[in-house]
C-alpha cells in the first residue's frame, strides 16, 4: 500500500479540522457584536449615535449631574460621573461631542440599579461631555464643557 498517500490524507484531514475550529473561533466575536450596538458606536455625530442607540435624537433638558474636570490635562483619562435624581432610568449614555465617534459608552440599568455611573473616558479635543438618560421612554440630556490640553485619541 502507498503509505505516503495515507499520510497525506491524514495530514489534510487534520488541517481541515483546524480550519473548522478557526472559523468557529472567528464566529464568537461576531455573536458578541450582535448585542453590542455597532451602528451607534460607529456613528460620527451625536444625533446619529443617539438615534441608533435610543431610537430618537430629541432630548429634553434634565436634572442630570455631570461631574467632570473643567480642564483635562490629559485627554486620554477624563474622569466622568453621571448621576440623576430621576426615577425609572433604564439607560445612561456618555458622549463626547468632538470625538471622531461621539458615543463613548452606554449603560443598561437592571433591577435595583441606581442612576449613577462613574468611569474614565478619552477625549480627542476640547468639547462637551454629554450625558443622556432614558427614563420612562423619554430622553433627557445635560452637558458640560471640558477643555482638553493634550488629546487622547492621536499619539
Amino acid at each position, binding site marked *: 500500500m502507498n503509505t505516503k498517500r495515507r499520510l497525506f490524507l491524514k495530514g489534510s484531514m487534520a488541517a481541515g479540522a483546524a480550519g473548522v475550529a478557526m472559523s468557529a473561533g472567528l464566529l464568537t*466575536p461576531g455573536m458578541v457584536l450582535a448585542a453590542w450596538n455597532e451602528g451607534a458606536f460607529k456613528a460620527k455625530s451625536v444625533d446619529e449615535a443617539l438615534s441608533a442607540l435610543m431610537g430618537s435624537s430629541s432630548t429634553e433638558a434634565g436634572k442630570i449631574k455631570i461631574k467632570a474636570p473643567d480642564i483635562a490635562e490629559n485627554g486620554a483619562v477624563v474622569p466622568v460621573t453621571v448621576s440623576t435624581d430621576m426615577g425609572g432610568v433604564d439607560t445612561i449614555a456618555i458622549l463626547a461631542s468632538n470625538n471622531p465617534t461621539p458615543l463613548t*459608552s452606554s449603560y443598561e440599568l437592571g433591577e*435595583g*440599579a441606581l442612576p449613577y455611573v462613574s*468611569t*474614565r473616558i478619552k477625549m480627542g479635543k476640547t468639547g462637551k461631555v454629554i450625558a443622556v438618560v432614558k427614563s420612562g421612554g423619554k430622553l433627557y440630556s445635560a452637558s458640560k464643557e471640558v477643555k482638553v490640553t493634550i488629546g*487622547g485619541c492621536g499619539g
Partner: protein
Amino acid sequence: MAKTIKVRARAKDGVVTVKMLISHPMESGRRKNKKTGKLIPAHFIQEVVTEHNGNKVLVANWSGAISKNPYLSFKFKGGAAGDSLKISWVDNQGKSDSTTAKIK
C-alpha cells in the same frame, strides 16, 4: 486569562457601591505605532456585565473611547453584605474574563 478584574463592593444603608478596575489596553484603533507608522488595531472591551443573584444589575457597553485600564463604579439597591457578585467582560477580539466578588 490571568486576573484582570479588581472589584470592591460595599453595602451601606441598603445600597451597594461597586467599584472595579480592569486591566486592558483599550486600543481605539486610531493610534499609530510611532516606529512603523501603522495603525494599532482596535482592541477594547465591548461589554461588562455585573450579576447579582443571577440578575443583571448593570450592563456596560463600551467603545475604544474608554480609557486604558478602565475604571467603573455604580450603585444598586437590594444587595447585602456577604452576597456575591459576578462580573465578566468581553472584548472585540473575543477575549473575556470573569470573576466573583463578595459584597462587604
